[in-house]
């Protein structure tokens, strides 16, 4: 089951990442909004031989890169069938490589296009860099988005879990269960902040025609506000469902998690649909515009990223993807943001490498038992358990693991094995060194805990049981 979940998760993220990047950044090699590859050039130069060579090369490179990465990403997504640890590490490294090289291809193409513009002096004096403001649109823009107050309803309902003493006690009484109502409060807060960030972005002037500016800015802000509210309500409904299920039944089943994921996915689908609507409608409005306003601020984008010391915005609309934001590198905050993000990325990769190492050890190790004089040591990878003969209170050979509610506290629970520290239904400590599909199972009652173990080698479990029986006598 875990392997199947990992495969589905890796494959879904791979497909959506490569697909969305391909969708959003495709077509930038064609003349659109006065630009090719994010650089303004006169329209009569769009078929210049140098431009055609550069855009052709960019298109081929991007297409090849996309297909190769889609293939590699999908192959790695299915590797958990063989090894969980290595495949996790490989997938993280692949995702990192994809993001870095994709950005590099885009940045290099933009730099080359700007160099081409400088070489041919394709500067248009009437379009020099200026800041444009449409006063009519700015004055009415507060009415474009749906109000952020809609997020207060799920936030208030989420708070109710904490305000009702019975509910609060119920969630706090079980280890980790507090996270369900905590998520129900955190999600509306997160979406409220996101709502404000996306709807208070500056109004952009696209045209000398104020109606066009109004249409596009209204489209962007209204659509963003609607999809963020939809995503908030979907995520909140999912967390409300799982909180209520836990409150009523005191435990959760696989179907609960599937329903949670499905309802949560509706929110993600709403956001993706919103992005597609914005991109499509914006293109329609701009193509129909008879008086486009072209402001040539390419000198701020010549490096492939935005760097304008006169702009006090830290985040600005991305030139190649209007629904995306990019940093203003000339802003002092950008260096802080990049440094902190860099630290987080390095830390995340380090954690992934660590997790991959742990999973690899869990994949490749085997249960072993050693008896030294009257001390027994059972080990699997980095989990071990030692006890003396006098600590053994009871010893049994079972056909299978007893039907109990075992909860993992610090250990591994894969398709193949159960290993590490657990608690049973009576909240007693249990250690497992168990292959799930192997039988029989040895149960050792100790003074402070119960140990279950078996082996995947034919006859080994019986041999261990015999040795332990002799020791216990």
């Amino acid at each position, binding site marked *: 089951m875990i392997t199947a979940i990992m495969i589905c998760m890796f494959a879904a993220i791979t497909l959506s990442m490569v697909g969305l990047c391909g969708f959003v950044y495709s077509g930038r090699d064609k003349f659109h909004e006065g630009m090719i590859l994010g650089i303004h050039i006169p329209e009569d130069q769009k078929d210049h031989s140098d431009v055609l060579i550069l855009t052709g090369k960019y298109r081929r490179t991007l297409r090849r890169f996309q297909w190769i990465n889609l293939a590699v990403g999908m192959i790695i997504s299915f590797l958990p069938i063989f090894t969980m640890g290595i495949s996790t590490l490989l997938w993280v490294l692949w995702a990192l490589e994809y993001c870095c090289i994709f950005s590099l291809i885009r940045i290099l193409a933009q730099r080359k296009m700007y160099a081409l513009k400088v070489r041919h002096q394709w500067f248009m004096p009437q379009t*020099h860099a200026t800041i444009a*403001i*449409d*006063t009519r649109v700015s004055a009415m823009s507060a009415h474009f988005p749906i109000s952020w107050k809609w997020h207060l309803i799920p936030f208030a309902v989420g708070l109710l879990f904490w305000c009702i003493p019975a509910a609060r006690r119920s969630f706090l009484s079980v280890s980790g269960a507090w996270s369900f109502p905590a998520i129900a409060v955190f999600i509306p807060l997160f979406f409220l902040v996101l709502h404000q960030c996306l709807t208070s972005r500056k109004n952009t002037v696209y045209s000398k025609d104020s109606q066009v500016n109004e249409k596009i800015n209204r489209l962007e802000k209204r659509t963003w506000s609607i999809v963020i509210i939809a995503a908030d309500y979907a995520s909140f409904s999912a967390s409300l469902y799982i909180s209520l299920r836990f409150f009523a039944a005191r435990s959760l089943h696989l179907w609960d998690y599937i329903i949670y994921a499905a309802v949560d996915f509706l929110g993600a689908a709403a956001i993706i649909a919103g992005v597609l609507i914005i991109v499509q409608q914006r293109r329609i409005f701009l193509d129909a515009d008879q008086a486009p306003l072209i402001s040539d601020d390419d000198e701020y984008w010549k490096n492939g990223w935005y760097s304008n010391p006169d702009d006090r915005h830290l985040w600005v609309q991305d030139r190649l993807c209007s629904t995306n934001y990019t940093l203003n590198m000339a802003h002092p905050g950008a260096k802080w943001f990049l440094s902190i993000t860099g630290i987080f990325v390095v830390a995340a990769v380090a954690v992934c490498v660590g997790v991959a190492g742990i999973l690899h050890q869990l994949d490749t190790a085997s249960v072993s038992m050693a008896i030294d004089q009257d001390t027994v040591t059972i080990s699997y990878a980095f989990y071990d358990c030692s006890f003396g003969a006098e600590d053994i209170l009871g010893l049994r050979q079972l056909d299978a693991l007893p039907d109990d509610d075992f909860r993992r506290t610090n250990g591994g629970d894969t398709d193949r094995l159960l290993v590490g520290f657990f608690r049973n239904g009576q909240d007693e400590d249990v250690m497992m060194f168990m292959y799930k599909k192997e039988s029989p199972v040895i149960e050792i009652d100790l003074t402070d805990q119960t140990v279950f173990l078996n082996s995947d080698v034919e006859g080994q479990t019986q041999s261990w049981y015999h040795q332990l029986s002799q020791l216990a006598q």
Partner: protein
Amino acid sequence: MLITLDTKSVIPIYAQLRNQIVAGIGRGELKAGEHLPTVRQLAADAGVNTMTVNKAYQLLKTEGFIEIDRRKGATVCPVGCGNSDYREKLEKELELLSAEACLKGVGCEEFLQLCKNIFGQMHPTCIEEG
């Protein structure tokens, strides 16, 4: 109305804002009674400090081009009659412009024609008329 600000110009941003709003009112692109963006919104859209926009708005208010209401925000004022202070200011600015034109070889007729053409573009209107 479109306002364009040049960050590399020697003219301060607040003065560019003030001048373009006055020109916009004069040309009828901003009608009397029309709402202007709030200080915060205009500053956000222009990517400048709110103090810069506030300075321009205060200047426009002092000169009688706009009025600022706590509740409604900034609105364009109806066309009024120039007082003696304004005529004095106009004379001084015309004197400077005339001197520059004269020194650059622009003749009186040409200068007056230019003034007439530009003045002819001014059609201040009320929002009800638009």
